[in-house]
């Protein structure tokens, strides 16, 4: 029976997918028909006919409704594609089993193939969606910015040498190995002279340089789902980002000189210099724009609404500026995001932070989806010229060269690394070298007249992409399981770990100083000190944003726990991951020294009293909740949102009082923090939705200021209920009684206020919570 239900669900999901695809196809078809130049839209021709008829200005009927598709067809089609992409993403999650076997990227390519097939069947011209303009200027930047902004700096920097080796030397090796051998293979056909003989060395090398770069989009798409450990992730991903510079240089070099036919030593040297310029120039451009963005964000405290815009616009301009000079746009974007992030986050409000995060995720997600769909569409459309030898040899050589490259490089790298790369690691790095849409777009950019074999190139590129994404993408997950590769540690970072990480940093720096040689830690420490002393003062608005990392971490953790406390709905839990009965009084020294002030002396509670109080209050809350439910149905207006809200508010204020009581009893010290640092504000909004699972009857959008007593919000809330609260304490047995409308006007006002989270009620954190 279970299998039957499951099968039915799968069928339903598949049917839905099919319907969506058909819908898309059927919508595109008439619109495509309408937009093709040789067939005028019916409405248009009618209008014109009518207009022509009435050349002598005779009065014609006023067109009440007319169709003018041509006017809006470009944005309309773009919107339609985006809609298709998003609906596809939704659709895949209706069939959970499918998305666990096949990575999303493969499914999206298949969808693209289907849509492309429909369009072609309809006889329409497939829009050239992967041409250079839209891909490199619109689709790629959001993904790269998202990657750069959220790049984990610490592991990236620690492994920078390894990453650079793989990116630069590895890509060079791939390009020359594949190009050279391909040329050799093309030449060796002794018997029947084929077109392949016309293929010269330089076009071969050009083709090889296009195909040899690991693609960040594909890597992101696949690696996101397999959750391997941080080291491997950052190695492959970092490589895919940094090899852009090499690809740009090789591509331009070979494209430039393919016409000439030869490359001299001078050109080679110029190529090397060009590489340095491209790479370092890109990073420099990115860093400049990053600092500009950070500096700008320092002054945005009065116009918080446009803060995210600065981040996006400066980053995009960094990308465009780098592209303008033929520098590496990807590296510029990464540098910009990574440089600006610590300063911008210290300056902006927590809402802007959330906005930036979600916009980046949204754009990169849609971009990625669109790229894969377009790959499918372009495959159906693109001019193909299949050549068995060329294609199979290419695929084979790509694999072989990648494996040899990784093994050889790791052998060299391990001599310099302290934490060596094991064979398993090497296998994953080699296997994770996926090719993607960038290679295809670069191939698409080639001009037919310079490269007569362009179609063959494109076919081969597509084959390699399909092979890596489908075969390698689908099998990497089971292989990771099979080889028992270490997975990402999901555990939350504890405060002890944070303390000791910092301690270790300083310790190792100190030991290096004693040893006398300036190593990794020394320079990192120096950079941190310069950062703290000069840069932060310049780029961060005020003192509170410059708190040391440990304190920021502690505040964030504290806030998260306070929020968890509220949302868990009752009972005081000491701040720990495991449920335990340990509280502050267990660790405070029993006999305080005489010199200690009075507040440190702990009142010893009688044994069962604390537990008693807890149970009373907990049961009170439960009764309250039940009471409220029954009352809500009859006395108040049946507004489900409001119902939940008032329930939640009552529950919360109970917990606030409870917590205050137990805090006083146990003398928990909360840091007397001055006005909230951005860290506090941000932590208040808690973690991102993936980590947060809202309980069924809690409303996730509320923001309550709990642990900072100075802020006016919490005081108001407390004051509101303190009067009522003391009354309620006496009526413990009855629980909370809800008064009808007239009597408890004040609370009614509060509830109404809260149930309307419109822009006027839920303002800047500077304004008081209640009017």
């Amino acid at each position: 029976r279970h299998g039957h239900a499951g099968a039915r669900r799968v069928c339903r999901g598949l049917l839905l997918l099919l319907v969506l695809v058909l819908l898309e196809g059927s919508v595109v078809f008439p619109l495509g028909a309408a937009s093709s130049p040789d067939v005028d839209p019916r409405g248009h021709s009618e209008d014109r006919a009518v207009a022509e008829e009435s050349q002598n200005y005779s009065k014609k009927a006023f067109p009440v409704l007319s169709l003018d598709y041509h006017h809006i067809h470009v944005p309309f089609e773009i919107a339609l594609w985006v809609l298709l992409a998003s609906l596809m993403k939704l659709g895949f999650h209706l069939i959970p089993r499918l998305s666990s076997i096949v990575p999303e990227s493969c499914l999206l390519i298949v969808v693209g193939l289907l849509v492309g097939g429909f369009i072609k069947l309809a006889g329409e011209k497939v829009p050239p969606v992967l041409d250079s303009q839209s891909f490199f200027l619109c689709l790629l930047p959001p993904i790269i910015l998202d990657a750069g902004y959220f790049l984990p700096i610490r592991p990236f920097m620690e492994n920078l040498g390894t990453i650079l080796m793989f990116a630069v030397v590895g890509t060079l090796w791939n390009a020359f190995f594949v190009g050279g051998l391909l040329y050799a293979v093309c030449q060796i056909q002794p018997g029947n002279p084929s077109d392949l003989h016309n293929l010269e060395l330089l076009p071969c090398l050009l083709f090889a340089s296009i195909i040899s770069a690991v693609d960040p989009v594909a890597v992101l798409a696949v690696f996101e789902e397999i959750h391997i450990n941080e080291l491997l992730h950052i190695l492959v991903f970092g490589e895919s980002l940094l090899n852009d510079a090499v690809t740009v240089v090789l591509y331009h070099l070979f494209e430039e000189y393919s016409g000439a036919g030869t490359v001299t030593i001078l050109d080679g040297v110029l190529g090397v210099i060009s590489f340095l310029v491209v790479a370092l120039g890109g990073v420099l451009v990115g860093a400049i724009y990053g600092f500009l963005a950070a500096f700008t964000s320092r002054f945005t405290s009065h116009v918080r609404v446009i803060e995210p815009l600065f981040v996006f616009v400066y980053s995009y301009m960094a990308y465009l500026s780098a592209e303008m000079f033929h520098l590496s746009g990807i590296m510029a974007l990464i540098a910009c995001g990574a440089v600006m992030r610590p300063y911008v986050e210290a300056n902006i409000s927590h809402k802007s932070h959330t906005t930036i995060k979600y916009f980046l995720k949204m754009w990169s997600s849609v971009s990625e989806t669109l790229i894969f769909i377009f790959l499918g569409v372009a495959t159906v459309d693109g001019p193909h010229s299949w050549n068995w030898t060329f294609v199979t040899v290419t695929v084979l050589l790509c694999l072989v060269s990648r494996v040899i490259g990784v093994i050889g490089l790791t052998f060299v790298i391990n001599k310099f690394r302290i934490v060596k790369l094991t064979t398993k690691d090497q296998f994953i790095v080699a296997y994770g070298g996926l090719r993607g849409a960038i290679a295809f777009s670069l191939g698409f950019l080639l001009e037919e007249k310079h490269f007569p074999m362009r179609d063959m190139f494109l076919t081969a590129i597509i084959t390699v992409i399909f092979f890596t994404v489908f075969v390698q993408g689908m099998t990497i997950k089971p292989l990771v399981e099979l080889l028992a590769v270490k997975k990402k540690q999901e555990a939350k970072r504890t405060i002890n770990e944070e303390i000791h990480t910092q301690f270790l940093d300083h310790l190792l720096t100190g030991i290096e100083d004693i040893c006398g040689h300036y190593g990794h830690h020394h320079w990192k420490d120096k950079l941190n000190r310069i950062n703290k002393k000069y840069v932060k003062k310049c780029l961060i608005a005020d003192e509170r944003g410059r708190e040391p990392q440990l304190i920021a971490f502690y505040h964030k953790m504290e806030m998260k726990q306070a929020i968890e406390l509220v949302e868990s709905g009752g009972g005081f839990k000491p701040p720990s991951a495991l449920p335990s009965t340990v509280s502050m009084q267990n660790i405070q020294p029993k006999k305080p020294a005489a010199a200690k002030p009075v507040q440190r002396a702990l009142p010893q509670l009688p044994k069962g009293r604390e537990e008693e109080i807890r149970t009373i209050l907990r049961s009170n809350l439960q009764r309250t909740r039940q009471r409220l439910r029954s009352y809500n149905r009859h006395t108040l207006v049946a507004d489900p949102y409001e119902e939940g809200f008032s329930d939640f508010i009552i529950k919360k204020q109970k917990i606030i009082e409870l917590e205050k009581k137990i805090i006083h009893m146990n003398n928990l010290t909360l840091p007397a923090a001055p006005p909230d640092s951005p860290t506090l504000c941000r932590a208040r909004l808690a973690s991102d939705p993936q980590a947060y699972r809202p309980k069924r009857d809690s409303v996730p959008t509320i923001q309550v200021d709990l642990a900072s007593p100075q802020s006016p919000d919490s005081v108001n809330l407390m004051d509101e209920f303190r009067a009522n609260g003391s009354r309620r304490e006496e009526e413990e047995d009855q629980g909370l009684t809800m008064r009808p409308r007239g009597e408890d006007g004040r609370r009614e006002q509060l509830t109404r206020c809260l149930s309307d989270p419109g822009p006027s009620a839920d303002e800047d954190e500077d304004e008081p919570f209640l009017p």
Partner: protein
Amino acid sequence: MGASQTRPEHRHQDLADRTGFSLEQIKNLHKRFQQLSGDEDTISKENLESIPTLANNPIRKQIIGAFFDKSAFAECLLAAGGAPHFPYRHQRGFILFGLRNQHRGEAGSCDQIGFEQFLMVMSHFRPPTLKMTAEEKEAMRREKLRFLFNMHDTDNDGTITLVEYRKVVEELLSKSGSIGQEAAEAIADAAMLEVASTNVPTMGPDDFYEGITFEHFEQILKGLEMESRMHIRFLDVDTTTMRCGKSTS
């Protein structure tokens, strides 16, 4: 060439066997030692404190203290001279662990340390090698954690009390101005609470958690993978006098 040359060689080889450093590394460290001590046989706290780059380090005192901690070494008194004689079995990596356990009772600090002690403290910061088995890695991790523990446990009673832990956090935040002072205590308290609740989840309201023992310390820092994080790169090649040719280790 003669007796004067072979004796330090012999000693160095001996030390290499015991501490796990290569001969090249020991030679380089010896040079550094000479540089710090002003060509004498021992170094004092003042020698280490005079390193200019160390001045910016917030936990400078603890680091220097760790070198001179008596409980970490077998014989401080022999530092002044003479060939030290370690009467136990040599075994790479395990040696120091056994050593410390033997002499846990001794407290206090020396005033002068010799090259052997210097080297032994340094040996805690060796990286794991590719050929290490899981047990060896585990032993190395424990050794490093023990070093850290001893650094925190200033009175050498085997537990890190709340006062000691507070001191640790305070020192860590000492360069951060007034924000650091206020928050240090709260952070230390919260951290202590976390250790207590992770290791002893059920405590009655009257029980008192004495302090972090070494087992608890190991438990809470399990996630950090000490053996791969707590290391520095020791120079294999002596850059001042480059010698091409034979390898000596």
